[in-house]
């Protein structure tokens, strides 16, 4: 995900109107303000929250059971009974999309969170200890990052097997390297700061320095990474499912639904069309949100 790394160092400038008011505000307040001033980011956040809300509430608001088959109702186009039509098993598309969004978010958040925990730990250790530890850890990270993400994920899936959990783990491994690289870079920048050296002189242990003094100060770029990688994780997951290497049927997974629907693309285009559209909207939301987050959190953005 080199692309994202670079875009993180070459960010957009927030609207110029804020420049004057920023001086007097606390940093966190400032971030919120900067984020809110970015209309795209807010729109993204709303889209994402909306999808999260409806997918969490799916069991309550979904009109049907996502797995309930009804052969008599198969291949129906959009109607009042089935707003987005039915699929080849007569299952309600709207219901399945709501549940599908849920799987997408679960995979996205879980995989990126695991990646973040592992990656940040590696990055902190590498940046703090330096020397051989750093050399070994970072070469491994570089190795991981040299793989094509999807190919690495497929290879790991081949090892772990298919299924929701294993997809999450494979994607986590794919993303961990990026977090490690970003964290290490920032740790190197602040390692020489007086407060870090002071802590070391006071006899604070390695773990203490890393988690109490270094981590809080490198958090921003990590959160930015988190936001940006969510969208990529969900895209990769749907790609894996599309290739038949992700979540197994009959789960209502968006990628799987597109894959199943492409067999009926002439007869019943909505079966692949609506899940695809839902996926695009989710990713648009996450991308807008991620960009906004980056602009708001990464103060270096303006300096470089």
């Amino acid at each position, binding site marked *: 995900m080199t692309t994202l790394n670079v*875009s993180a160092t070459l960010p*957009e400038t927030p609207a110029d109107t804020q420049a004057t008011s920023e001086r007097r505000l606390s940093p966190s307040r400032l971030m919120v303000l900067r984020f809110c001033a970015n209309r795209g980011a807010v729109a993204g956040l709303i889209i994402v929250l909306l999808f999260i809300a409806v997918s969490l509430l799916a069991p309550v608001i979904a009109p049907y059971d996502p797995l309930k088959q009804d052969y008599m109702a198969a291949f129906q186009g959009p109607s009042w009974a089935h707003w987005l039509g039915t699929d080849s098993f007569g299952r309600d598309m709207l219901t399945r999309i709501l549940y599908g969004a849920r799987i997408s978010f679960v995979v996205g958040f879980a995989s990126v969170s695991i990646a973040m925990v592992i990656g940040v730990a590696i990055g902190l250790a590498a940046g703090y200890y330096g020397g051989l530890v750093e050399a070994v850890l970072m070469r491994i990270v570089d190795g991981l990052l040299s793989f094509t993400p999807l190919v690495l994920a497929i*290879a790991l899936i081949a090892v772990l097997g298919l299924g929701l959990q294993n997809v999450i783990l494979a994607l986590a491994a794919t993303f961990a390297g990026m977090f490690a690289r970003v964290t290490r870079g920032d740790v190197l920048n602040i390692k020489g700061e007086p407060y870090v050296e002071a802590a070391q002189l006071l006899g604070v242990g390695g773990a203490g320095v890393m988690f109490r003094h270094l981590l809080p100060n490198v958090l921003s770029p990590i959160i930015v990474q988190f936001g940006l990688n969510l969208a990529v994780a969900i895209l990769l997951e749907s790609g894996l499912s599309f*290739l038949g290497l992700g979540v197994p049927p009959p789960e209502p997974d968006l990628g799987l639904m597109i894959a199943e629907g492409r067999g009926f693309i002439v007869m019943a285009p909505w079966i692949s069309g609506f899940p695809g559209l839902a996926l695009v909207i989710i990713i648009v939301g996450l991308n807008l949100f991620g960009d906004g987050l980056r602009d708001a959190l990464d103060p270096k953005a303006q300096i470089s």
Partner: protein
Amino acid sequence: MLQFAFKRLQHTLILLFIISVFVFFIMKLAPGDPVTVMLGSDYNPESYARLRTELGLDRSIFIQYGIWISRFVTGDWGYSYISGAKVSKLILQDALPVTLFLSLWSLVFALVLALPSGILAALKRNTWVDYTGMGLAIFFNSFPSFYLGIVLIWIFGVSLGWFPTMGYVSPWSDPVGSITHMMLPAFTLGAWYAGLIARITRSSLVDVLNQPFIKVAKAKGVDSRAVVYKHALRNVLIPVVTIVGLQLGGMLRGAVMTETVFALPGIGRLVTIAVLNREYQLVQASVMVIAIMFIFINLGVDMLYRFLNPRMRAA
């Protein structure tokens, strides 16, 4: 500069070693082996055991690694277990040209779409031009390529019949056909990158336009169009070149989904199928080739970046 290059080369070799270990052991950890796949429904325990021995798959895993890596560095990449083709032929002759051609065209598409819209959006900041351009950029940047591919195939390939829907035609044998066959896949892949490049172009240009020297130039009464052309665009070049270089590196890693949907015989599809078939030698060699290209392109981009950006050279 030379010392820098030498050090990077050293790192690169270590990196390649690590990648080779990774890919080798990941593949060995995966259940099943090429013999299982080869035999398919003709499976029987005796032929299974015999073929495993024949292919050297029953030896110690470390010995297998040693044999493979020592042959690999001398240029003997082995054979496909299933079809008996030379791995080097499959990668270098069959797959790589396709991916190179696809990447090249996608890049052309991406730049043609992205640069003007990025620049225009920056100049007409916060107008409908900006919103539309950036909206489209985000939209295309958010489209899963497999889904966009399917949509394009059925609209522009089947319904309208404007472009061929599938397959690769070599530019050497049929230059025109090669381009028409590449239109939809290159757009599919290029659209994603176009979205990214347009956003970067816009934000870098906005950045530059806010710089004091531009404001000074404007204040001095220089024609605003000249300001953009003479001062701003030159400064936008650095981030854009960097991102384009990195994109190229990314593209060459193989667009698995695009190649799958459009039935292009590129390296992404080659390596994916090879993983599923447990074609160890083919996967290992492909991953190494991809990594080598990726690393060297990044190295090149890095050097270029240092060259273009004097501040970094000093550091």
